[in-house]
């Protein structure tokens, strides 16, 4: 059986609104007591975040999407636009944000759909799903070894549009951001070497978990996430010491402290610098963090990185990506 053509990430871009607020400033609207706001800030490490109620989700999603599309080669086409989001309902039922994003980008021939079933992991899951569609299409049109001229655009971008979806009690304060990833199969971009998820269905209630269930989830979280991270690295045929850096979701510092302790990791190998600056931006974190690292020249050509994310409900996901400078 021939090797599957690898998924390649050709361009990743992100967008953050300029308006910065401190967690303290949101305490009243979120119903946080003084001590709760203090714990978020000093213990969970969530200090500032980008939050602009004047924006729509399109203001977050379209700028990075347009920049990512600049990497589309002449003559290539975007076959799919997939909008990955965490909150299931973001628009009235007669509006389809995925199609609206596609149309705003002028990609009228592309098929547009949304993925949200894995909450904040949906962006990684969307890349995996749409790459499979591209592979199937490449196999039909070009044969299994043929290069694909078809691309897909994965887009994120959603707003913390109400206190109900901005506060995950005792865990995170959600923030605004958007991101986009132009991908294909067999291209010259960063290579997706593995992708692994595990869904702990017993915690599917998400924000409606009981205190006892939340405590149980907290007790198994680090070990379960460590298992998914190790599994993704093993599936890529690598040893954990081969991973240059973990590019995480920005849930909070104390959760990462638990995972770092569980795995015996060097804390310097987990990129946490954006947690106090941007907080947790739904499905965008991995891509926002990637762009920070890339734009500051900190991604190493040929090195392997581990994207890690966790979604309410509760899906744990990890993707190994080999960076190729271009």
């Amino acid at each position, binding site marked *: 059986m021939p090797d599957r053509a690898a998924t390649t990430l050709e361009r990743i871009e992100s967008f953050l609104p300029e308006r910065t607020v401190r967690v303290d400033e949101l305490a009243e609207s979120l119903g946080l*007591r003084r*001590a*709760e*706001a*203090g*714990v978020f*800030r*000093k*213990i*969970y490490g969530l200090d500032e975040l980008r939050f602009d109620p004047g924006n729509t989700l399109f203001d977050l999603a379209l700028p990075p999407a347009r920049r990512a599309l600049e990497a589309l080669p002449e003559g290539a086409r975007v076959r799919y636009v997939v909008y990955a989001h965490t909150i299931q309902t973001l628009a009235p039922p007669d509006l389809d944000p995925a199609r609206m994003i596609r149309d705003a980008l002028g990609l009228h021939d592309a098929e547009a759909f949304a993925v949200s079933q894995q909450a904040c992991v949906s962006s990684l899951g969307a890349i995996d799903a749409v790459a499979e569609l591209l592979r199937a299409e490449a196999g039909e049109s070009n044969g299994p070894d043929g290069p694909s001229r078809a691309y897909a655009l994965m887009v994120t971008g959603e707003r913390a549009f109400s206190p109900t979806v901005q506060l995950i009690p*005792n*865990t995170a304060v959600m923030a605004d951001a958007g991101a986009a990833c132009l991908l294909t199969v067999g291209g010259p971009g960063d290579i997706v070497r593995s992708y692994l998820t595990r869904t702990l269905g017993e915690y599917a209630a998400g924000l409606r978990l009981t*205190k006892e269930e*939340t*405590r149980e989830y*907290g*007790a198994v979280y680090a070990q379960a996430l460590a298992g998914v991270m190790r599994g993704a690295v093993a599936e890529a045929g690598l040893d954990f010491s081969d991973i240059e850096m973990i590019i995480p979701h920005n849930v*909070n*510092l*104390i*959760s990462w*402290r*638990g995972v770092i*302790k569980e795995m015996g990791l060097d804390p310097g190998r987990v990129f946490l610098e954006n947690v106090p600056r941007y907080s947790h931006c739904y499905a965008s974190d991995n891509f926002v963090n990637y762009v920070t690292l890339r734009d500051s020249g900190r991604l190493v050509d040929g090195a392997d990185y581990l994207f890690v994310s966790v979604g309410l409900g509760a899906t744990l996901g990890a993707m190994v990506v080999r960076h190729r400078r271009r």
Partner: protein
Amino acid sequence: MISTRIDEVRAWILSRHPERESVASDENLIESRLVDSLSFVELVYTIEAAADVEIDFDAIDIQDFQTISAIEKAFFARA
């Protein structure tokens, strides 16, 4: 044995963990999950009540909550 106000914090931790008989002063409360994300705010209120202080979050760090000894030093030293 003379009970001190830091013992109120120790008693609160033990009340949440009936499987435990004691907590060593240098035991890491976070890594051992004696205090988790759900209970951190309650820990803050327990310390404030026992030490009769209002914690200034601009002046503290997570290290101040790592162990019973650290809590005592950070919040009870002037008592």
